């Protein structure tokens, strides 16, 4: 009797329906496959906002295609009455609760991620101490590439209770903080002006964004933090290298001494 009830949930699937379902799945997979190749290729030729916009369309399009395909296929297989839906959702809930909790949680978080946009392809994010560029947002996980070219897969379920630090939040503005550690005895105003000019004359700097220098006095000397934005977030490491190299040369030219940190005074450096 139970078997009859379960069978009763489903429609009789004709060969035409099977072909139609196969075509819908094939077309959906085709669209998703094509979008995952076409959009990144197009994005490679674009910069700034346009690049990020094109990249952000990939997961959005995938969810739209997935939802449309589901809406198309489900009524062809299942009698969509309220009773049937409750029975199916109940059974599915039981299976998810026992066997596939994390997997489905990640899938649902993936859909929420498309809506809430905590990260998009092209964003620079940090999750659980891993910093990198979002290269791909899959159904279950987000794919990061670290500055050392290591691919890290982070399941979407981190979204529920983890802290996600997004450095550029979908835009081309990503602040870089470059530190300079100097011995305490020097003219702070002169150094501040000099470091601002170091950023202003960097070919990487985004001139539309502010350049600031924050000074803090430490037991070992003075800590300068030069804050500025590169034109493209992907240039952040070259930008910081340029600021560091030219900044050091300029500071040396005005005879400012660099601080020598003893191990007990060492400060953690954030990227």
């Amino acid at each position, binding site marked *: 009797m139970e078997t009859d009830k379960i069978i009763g949930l489903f429609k009789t699937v004709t060969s035409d329906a099977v072909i139609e379902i196969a075509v819908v799945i094939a077309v959906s997979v085709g669209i998703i496959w094509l979008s995952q190749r076409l959009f990144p290729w197009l994005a490679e030729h674009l910069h700034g906002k346009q690049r990020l916009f094109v990249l952000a369309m990939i997961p959005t399009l995938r969810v739209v295609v997935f939802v449309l395909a589901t809406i198309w296929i489900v009524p062809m297989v299942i009698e969509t009455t309220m009773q049937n839906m409750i029975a199916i959702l109940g059974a599915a809930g039981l299976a998810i609760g026992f066997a596939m909790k994390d997997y489905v949680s990640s899938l649902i978080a993936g859909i929420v991620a498309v809506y809430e946009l905590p990260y998009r392809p092209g964003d620079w994010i940090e999750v659980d101490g891993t910093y990198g560029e979002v290269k791909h947002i899959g159904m279950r996980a987000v794919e990061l590439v670290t500055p050392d070219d290591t691919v890290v897969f982070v399941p979407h379920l981190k979204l529920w209770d983890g802290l996600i630090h997004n450095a550029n939040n979908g835009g081309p503005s990503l602040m870089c903080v470059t530190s300079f550690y100097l011995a305490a005895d020097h003219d702070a105003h002169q150094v501040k002006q000099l470091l601002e000019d170091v950023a202003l004359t960097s070919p990487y700097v985004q001139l539309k964004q502010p350049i600031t220098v924050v000074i803090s006095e430490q037991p070992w000397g003075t800590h300068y933090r030069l804050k500025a934005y590169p034109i493209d977030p992907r*240039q952040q490491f070259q930008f910081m290298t340029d600021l560091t190299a030219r900044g050091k040369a300029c500071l040396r030219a005005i005879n400012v001494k660099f601080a020598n940190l003893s191990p007990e005074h060492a400060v953690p450096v954030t990227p």
Partner: protein
Amino acid sequence: MSSENNWRVIRLAEFERPDAPASTRVQQLFQHIRNLFPKADESTDDEEQSDFPGYREFDLKPGADALDAAFDEWRNDSEPGIKFLISPPFSGTAAIAREWAQRHNWKQLTPPAEEQLSSVDIDSWWQAQSTKQWLIDDLANYWQRRTDGMAFVRALLPKLMRGELGQGLVVCDSWSFAFLQRAWPVHLPNVYCFAAAEEALLRQVGIQADDKKLKALAARALGNVGLALALWAVEQDEEHGLPSMPPDCGDETAFVLYTLLLHMGLSGETLQRLLPTVAADQLDVQLLQLQQARLVQYDDNQWHVTVYGYLAVRDFLKSRGFYVDAF
């Protein structure tokens, strides 16, 4: 032919580009896409095609008359102070200002030597050429984009604005002006430019075509007379098309082009000093590649962006998020 003078001096804030007809917008979009997806075979290196048609220079007197109409009262008052005249690249604004200065016997000031740019000693530069009324025909030569290359202009501008150096007209290239406003963020008063060229002005400088064509040309040239003459010359010459960006343009290409535009041309040595992040051999490669693509040229020991390549270069820099000029 009308004898009306169509040159007009306006405040910079009032500048508006000519409206582009739909066909021109489509053409601009096509050009933009072409720049995004450059083809390897587009950068031709045939000897036969190496020379672009020379574009005719135009009569500077009507432009100088427009400066007279705008500045005569101020000039006659002889009150110390300055006015800025912003010059988009290839617009001929500096040449017009020189013509105007010559007309009124205003002295053209000599820019400081490269080693003076790091100094704030304005007096020693000024005393050698001190005069009551003067013209600075290109402020881009008064600074360089390096940490010790902006001290001079930062010390000079307040003195000029306070009127300590008499009465003067300062012509500043539009790219240089955009950067200087960022480097020295003080609201500058008395900033003028020539109004965008439209059909009547293009006809006045000698381009003969119907209104529709002239309107499209003015829009494509961003209202810039010099650019319009260059585009017109290319349009009349079936052998040439406008140059486009070569393939494999990267950050370094953008840095070179932006720096050249910022200073309206630089020698190879100075360019290397301003871009220490680009290795010397890489810089040579970039310059040669851009020269082959007709986007830059080497004249009088200086590298310049070509008038024919300017639109492609501007579009390239803008699409990569660079801080472009207001024109």
